């Protein structure tokens, strides 16, 4: 099988000669969930944000190396296109407060100036909300603001908003760290279902979450990718000593 995402020597610096991510090289295969783990400040979110070129928004951040998404070098593509192909879900649910639930799902289309007719809109909204199991909960309150929902529902709305654009991969930056256990559980179940259609990379500081949902795990430490492999294998027989120490709670 061909990898959907390939990274070669990816480094990210916030200031000259201070690297948050150092020479990361790895492949991500389609229809898998990859968990990126590591202690705070190890560069896991920074690496994730390099994939959809979020760092372009801040002039002080420099990304080097090569990232290919479905065979295309993302630095040769238009950054807007990269971001549509690599959807992102953030730590804090961020539905747009000036838009209704319905408009939030379609926000990607509105923002990109893509016009749709009513039937297409209704279809996309229903399909996206069905796929995050939110449809039954919100179908009668579509015109309410997105901020009217609970935190867990807001996060699922944000996932729906990202899925509506039919991305190739889904980048999730600690998507459950602001949520209660029940909402977290729902999102985890959701990710396992979404895996059939999408490739998911999820940054998490929750090791048991990584063990529950991911196929592969990456362990990062001080900006370096220490180990990347099958999750079960990594949790039972880690190859690297630092991975073992982190997983057994020696540090982190």
């Amino acid at each position, binding site marked *: 099988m061909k990898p959907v995402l390939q990274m070669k020597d990816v480094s990210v610096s916030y200031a000259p000669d201070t690297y948050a991510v150092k020479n990361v090289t790895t492949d991500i295969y389609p229809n898998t969930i990859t968990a990126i783990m590591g202690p705070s400040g190890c560069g896991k979110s920074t690496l994730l944000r390099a994939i*959809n070129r*979020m760092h372009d*928004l801040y002039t002080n951040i420099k990304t080097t190396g090569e990232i290919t998404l479905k065979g295309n070098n993302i630095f040769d593509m238009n950054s*807007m*296109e990269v*971001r*549509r192909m690599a*959807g*992102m879900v*953030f730590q*804090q649910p*961020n539905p*747009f*407060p*000036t838009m209704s639930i319905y408009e939030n799902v379609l*926000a*990607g289309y*509105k*923002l*990109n*100036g893509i016009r749709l007719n009513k039937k297409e809109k209704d279809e996309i909204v229903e399909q996206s909300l069905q796929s995050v199991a939110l449809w039954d909960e919100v179908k009668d309150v579509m015109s309410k603001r997105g901020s009217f929902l609970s935190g867990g529902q807001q996060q699922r709305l*944000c996932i729906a*908003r*990202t899925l509506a*654009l039919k991305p190739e991969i889904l980048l999730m930056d600690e998507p459950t760290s602001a949520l209660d256990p029940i909402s977290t559980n729902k999102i985890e179940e959701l990710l396992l279902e979404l895996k059939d259609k999408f490739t998911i990379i999820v940054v998490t500081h929750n090791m048991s979450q990584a063990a529950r949902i991911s196929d592969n795990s990456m362990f990062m430490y001080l900006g370096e990718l220490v180990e990347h492999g099958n999750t079960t294998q990594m949790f039972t027989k880690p190859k690297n000593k630092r991975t073992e120490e982190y997983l057994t709670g020696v540090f982190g």
Partner: protein
Amino acid sequence: MKDKIFRFLLFFAALIILLLTAGIIFALVSRSTEAFQEYGIWGFIANPEWDPRPATEEYGALSFIVGTLYTAFFALFLCVPFSLSVALFNGEYFKGKRISSFVRSIVDLLAGIPSIVYGLWGFYAVRPLIIDLGINAQGFGIFLSSIVLAIMIIPYASSLSTEFISMVPNKLKEGAYSLGATQFEVIQNISLPTARSGIVASYILALGRALGETMAVTMLIGNTDRIPKGLRDTGNTMASVIANQFGEADGLKLSSLIAIGLLLFVITALINMIAKLVMKKVASI
């Protein structure tokens, strides 16, 4: 004991402010009753005549109310594109950059220029331009006043809307960028709608400033006591007619001028109240 004295002093200071405000309102109301009794409140407001000749003496505020609304709203209209650009420049495009604080201090400098200096500049620098453009023969009038007034209120409108635009949470903007939006699309669909109430409030406050601005307008508006026929015409605002005529006024005329002052006070107080209400809505987002 010290606490008690301090609290008493604070209470006393607050009370004095309250009494002063009440005193100003009382003075305005009591001195304007003569005019309101003569014409009735509505009769005074709706009457466009202002005739100080002793034989045919008659006073109404409508010409000046219309003149005030004309100049203030036209000034607001002229100020919007500039102040919104400044606000986006400082609050979005160059937020936190050195160039932004430079632009900000220049705009703040505009707010510090005394009204009389604006009046002089309008009189000697802008008026000839108005004549050259053929807008009217003398240059004086609503048009000239509104241009100068627009420049005077830009700092008020832009500094407050800059605050509201830069307060739009980064997580919303990143959310929009992550969906493939360009910076322009983020501003159009996220930043401006989210900051909308705040921006509206800052324009309402700027309008309040424009309504009450006196010195520069008095020097530039042409001071004619009738309803202006259009933007090219001369006129008078409520503030400028008071500034122009209070010196030689007594009796019914003085009372009428004070009545106009009271009306202006009520209008600006209402405008400020509306702005505060709109801003409360912002705080609840």
